[in-house]
């Protein structure tokens, strides 16, 4: 992955909004004083009449988005994951989720890789929170190509979508010319028979690297990219459970309530196999450079290798 171009998915988000604006004339963008960081600033520059800064008032921004959607607009409400899913949770639930309004939530700076800002801004709970809202679609793209496709997919469905983007530049491993995004469908990136590594977002590239190292050690690891966490591709997950007998989940999110939980819930219903969760354990993050933090919290290829080796022994 070292020689690949790197780009933060928040950059892809801003660019995708601009690229899609002409086709979707009803699309408007809201931000809460973070346009420079969420990258909606590029949309503001290109389409100033369709951009509305709500100030540092995320609760109201989500409600305004609901009202815009109720009158036919397609609003993208943007802020950090901490405030979109955390602070504004109840507004997202009651004003967007319950009436099932066509609001797209663009949540950037998700996970531990926020870096130096530390625990208050490192949201490791957003997937868990959003998963509990009936009818909410959750997409956590892995790289630039997938992130742009995710924004387009979100526009094409009617209903609330939570889009999760990162601050840290991530390797662009998908090929824009051949990549195909199918909402709710996992992607088999690498086949394998001993174990399945199910990864999402920033962790997909780490999972690929881990699988390559495992192969050198004689372990055949399948790698699945789950970009759509809800609705989850249960069919694929269950197939993997049956064929490889053990699953390792990897996410830049708490091990409580996120991808690991979703996968566990799925396999217990169809093919109970051990599911080992790699993610942020039940603890808060801390300040530090993003890459070092990812290592400290075990969100890196070497830890995935280690955990996968342990997982295989459980078979």
């Amino acid at each position: 992955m070292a020689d690949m171009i790197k780009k933060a998915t928040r950059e892809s988000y801003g660019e995708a909004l601009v690229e899609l604006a002409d086709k979707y004339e009803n699309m408007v963008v809201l931000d809460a004083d973070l346009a420079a960081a969420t990258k909606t600033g590029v949309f503001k520059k290109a389409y100033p009449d369709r951009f509305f800064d709500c100030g540092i008032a995320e609760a109201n921004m989500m409600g305004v988005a609901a009202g815009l959607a109720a009158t036919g607009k397609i609003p993208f409400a943007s802020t950090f994951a901490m405030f979109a899913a955390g602070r504004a949770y109840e507004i997202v639930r009651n004003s967007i989720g319950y009436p099932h309004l066509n609001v797209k939530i663009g949540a950037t700076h998700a996970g531990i890789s926020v870096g130096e800002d530390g625990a208050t801004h490192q949201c490791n709970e957003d997937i868990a929170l959003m998963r509990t809202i009936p009818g909410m679609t959750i997409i956590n793209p892995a790289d630039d190509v997938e992130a742009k496709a995710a924004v387009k997919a979100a526009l094409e469905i009617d209903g609330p979508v939570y889009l999760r983007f990162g601050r840290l530049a991530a390797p662009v491993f998908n090929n824009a010319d051949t990549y195909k995004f199918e909402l709710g469908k996992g992607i088999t990136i690498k086949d394998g028979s001993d174990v399945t590594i199910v990864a999402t977002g920033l962790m997909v590239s780490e999972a690929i690297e881990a699988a390559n190292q495992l192969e050198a050690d004689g372990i055949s690891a399948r790698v699945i990219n789950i970009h759509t966490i809800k609705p989850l591709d249960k069919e694929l997950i269950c197939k993997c459970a049956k064929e490889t007998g053990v699953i390792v989940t990897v996410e830049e999110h708490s091990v409580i309530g996120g991808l690991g939980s979703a996968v566990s819930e799925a396999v217990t219903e169809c093919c109970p196999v051990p599911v080992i969760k790699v993610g942020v354990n039940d603890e808060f993050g801390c300040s530090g450079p993003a890459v070092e933090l990812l290592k400290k919290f075990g969100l890196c290829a070497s830890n995935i290798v280690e955990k996968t080796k342990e997982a295989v022994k459980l078979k």
Partner: protein
Amino acid sequence: MDVTVKKNLMKTACKVRMGVIEGTFNAKSGHPGGSLSISDLLTYLYFAKLNVDPKNPDFEDRDRFVLSKGHTAPALYSVLAQRGFFPEEELKSLRHIDALLQGHPCIHIPGVDMSSGSLGQGISAACGMALSGKLSSKDYKVYTVLGDGEIEEGQVWEAAMFAAHYGLDNLVAIVDNNGLQIDGKITEVCSPEPITDKFAAFGWHVITMDAHDFDDIERAFNEAEKISGKPVAIIQKSVKGKGVSFMENQVSWHGTAPNKEQYDTAMAELSQQLKELED
């Protein structure tokens, strides 16, 4: 206001109040006090102000109404039934399992423009609807009703800031100032006063009105109509429980349903009021 028009509005408001009592009695729960304090206002809006069509409840250019104080849904449902959005009979199954009429307003009910009930949220949605109207160069107006206790929610003031900043002069927010909330007098619980000064300081045009006098209601809305460049807040001085003697100004009637005896007494009182108006 024309005398006949006024009398008709008073008669309709009386029927709306009977619907509130009918609904909460059959539900054995709900919020009659705050529903009765906004019954005249909602009657005026739905019978003299709003551009709505019961036969085509979703037409694009309609005026929008958001009941931010969603717990007073019985009043909204009752006025919608009177206006013909659904049969009056539905009020009898308010809050029942599998019923159309949910405990708090739900967007899927004919005539309801926004789900609401978690306090402080409706006004934000109303702001979004008003902004949307401006963006699409639509002439529709957006009306929202808040409780005076509800405005203790911080989100209300985020919305107030937003509406003024974007010059949403197609938005009218009415604050139902009946002075009572669940735990007691608003001035004793955690006072939101001075309400008029607060909205004025947030950049709104503020009008006060008597919530139970149709002449004054008309005066207030006529004034609101003339304001441009800023949103309008109408602070309506109201009586919680208005129209049912034993419920008036009693905080205990915030969220309590009448029993059979109380139902009979309330309906008798309202029938008498209606009879007097019809004579």
